[in-house]
């Protein structure tokens, strides 16, 4: 028995390590060919696994048997990543960015993924959170930790007010409302004077714990970890939190109701589901987490301006959900990572970034409409 375990665990751990190493290298590589090399390597690797059913089966078995173990290892890797990247602050910053998008996408997933509401208001809600808290911090000097929930609530409030009437409209009309809303918010931010106009708001204080400011370098057993790691950890924490919330919502009558609405509104009504309420709920929840993400963004950038809240943000997040996978939190998070890392990695053709981006979305929709990681079946035991 023990021998068997030994023979399983060691290769398993090493395979997972291989995974992480590849991910790590992908992060730090700069040159296009090396990145392409890594990518092709990954593809070959996956083909290789599929070609050898034994190995494939073995991995599947391990992942099911030692799930906990695998997860723990993953968590350790995520926590240790900044230490490995200590010489690459930029990469940490990008990861922080990916985290932000993961937050936004997780929120939007409750709309597009669970309830099938095509919502393009992400830019607006993101902005609401960021600007509300930034203004409060500047004028009233409130601390980040108080403002974090406030940002969320402010956005949720807006979401509720907007949602209550809008959720009566359907499909295209609804998405048009959200698009219009995003554009309005952007225009207002640009033209109003008290939002700082196009210059936005500068000098937003960094978050502090006690008197440890988040823009100070972490010193840990002789290693110097760049300050971006602070934001990284904060984001990871929030994403984890949102992830848990997402799981709980999914495995609850609320999540079920959302899926019901996605499939058939009339039938849903006939199961006693208050469709309008559920929609508004998912809308407001989405806004809430967007607001939180906005707050995080404002305080970590310490300078916000309308350019960061354009319609493109909404499109990007929608794309993330679609690429990642409808109604599948893990997929969405991975999608966020892909959609932020790959454009960064191909800075080499800065010019062609958006074009490639557009193509990726199209290809995904055409070839794998359910996303890289389709929704999974609920198991109750």
């Amino acid at each position, binding site marked *: 028995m023990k021998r068997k375990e030994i023979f399983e665990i060691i290769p398993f751990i090493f395979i997972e390590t291989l995974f992480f190493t590849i991910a790590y290298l992908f992060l730090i590589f700069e040159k296009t060919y090396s990145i392409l090399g890594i990518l092709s390597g990954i593809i070959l690797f996956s083909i290789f696994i599929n070609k050898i059913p034994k190995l494939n089966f073995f991995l599947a078995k391990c992942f099911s048997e030692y799930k906990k173990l695998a997860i723990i290892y993953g968590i350790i890797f995520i926590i240790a990543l900044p230490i490995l990247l200590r010489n690459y602050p930029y990469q940490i910053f990008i990861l922080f960015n990916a985290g932000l998008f993961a937050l936004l996408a997780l929120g939007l997933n409750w709309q597009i993924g669970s309830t099938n509401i095509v919502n393009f208001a992400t830019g607006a809600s993101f902005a609401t959170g960021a600007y509300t808290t930034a203004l409060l911090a500047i004028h009233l000097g409130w601390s980040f930790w108080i403002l974090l929930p406030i940002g969320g609530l402010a956005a949720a409030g807006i979401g509720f007010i907007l949602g209550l009437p809008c959720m009566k409209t359907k499909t295209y*009309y609804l998405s048009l*409302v959200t698009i219009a809303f995003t554009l*309005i918010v952007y225009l207002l931010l640009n033209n109003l004077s008290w939002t700082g106009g196009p210059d936005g708001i500068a000098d937003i204080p960094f978050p502090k714990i006690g008197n440890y400011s988040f823009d100070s370098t972490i010193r840990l057993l002789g290693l110097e970890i760049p300050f971006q790691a602070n934001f990284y950890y904060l984001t990871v924490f929030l994403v984890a939190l949102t992830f848990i919330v997402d799981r709980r919502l999914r495995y609850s009558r609320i999540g079920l109701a959302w899926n019901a609405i996605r499939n058939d509104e009339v039938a849903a009504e006939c199961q006693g589901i208050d469709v309008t309420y559920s929609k508004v709920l998912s809308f407001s929840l989405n806004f809430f987490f967007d607001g939180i993400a906005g707050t995080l963004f404002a305080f970590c950038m310490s300078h916000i301006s309308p350019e960061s809240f354009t319609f493109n943000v909404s499109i990007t997040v929608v794309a993330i959900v679609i690429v990642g996978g409808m109604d599948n939190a893990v997929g969405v998070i991975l999608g966020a990572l892909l959609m932020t890392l790959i454009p960064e990695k191909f800075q080499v053709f800065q010019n062609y970034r958006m*074009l490639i981006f*557009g193509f990726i*979305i199209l290809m995904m*929709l055409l070839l794998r409409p359910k996303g890289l990681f389709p929704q999974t079946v609920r198991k109750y035991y």
Partner: protein
Amino acid sequence: MTQFIEQIIFALMLSSTYALISVGFTLFFGAINIVHFSHGDVAMLGAFSGIIIYGLFRFMGSVPSWLITMVIFLLTFIIIGFLGTFFERTVIKPFRKSPLLMVLVATIALGIVIRESVRLFYPQGSNPQVFPKILPQVNYEIGRLLMRFDHLLIFLISFFLISFMFLFINRTKTGLAIRAISQDIEAANLMGINSDIIIAITFLIGSILAGLAGILIGSYQTVVRFDIGLMGGIKGFSAAVVGGLGNFYGAIVGSLILGFTESLSSAYIPGGAPYKDVFAFIIVIFFLVFKPSGILGRAAPIKI
């Protein structure tokens, strides 16, 4: 007074440009219940094809200008028509069975691709491109009021295009087929209508209209840029919705409302100019919330 009349004229011009786009949206939605979000970008392509063709003529030396204009319209007609149907085949057809969201996002992505391609592969693509003066430049002085012949022409052409389209839908056999599939595609198929071809034709017509719209918008705005399609598309769509999606008169009414809101608000509300789009979109939201079926649209009953 003169100023007011001028303002009205500008509003009308703006409205007509919106109408050209929004009619396309209405057509597509009417036919197969999809919103072709890159429609505005197709129009942009039309404008660019106009520029390119004009450029080609430059090399061919002296050709009478009316001929050039004719050819530009004709070729754009063909090119954009082809492109439009091509887009339908590749990007929209695959999603006919899948949820609305899919085709919506797909067309948005298509829009990105089109815009970026023009920006990257057209020489100096990110700069605004001057649109050639293909319409006769004649002015009339009426009192202090300056009337431009080409503006009048643009207005008339767009009017004719739209009414032609309207007749096509309502008077021809194909138009009948289009309306049939918009009612119930399965039934239409059973009646021996080849829905594939009809939808292709729908897109052909719509795209051609967009292409010509591009030319007209180009000659009204005098410059075009790779990204005019995005806003143009959204405005066109909004106009269609305000008027009642799927209803021709609606599209026109909606365009008029948007056009007038924008130009009048920027002219008569002090400091209102930068907010004109805000006003426009607030009206859009208002309509969506309180009368989602639009001014002339009918609310569809639930089918059980």
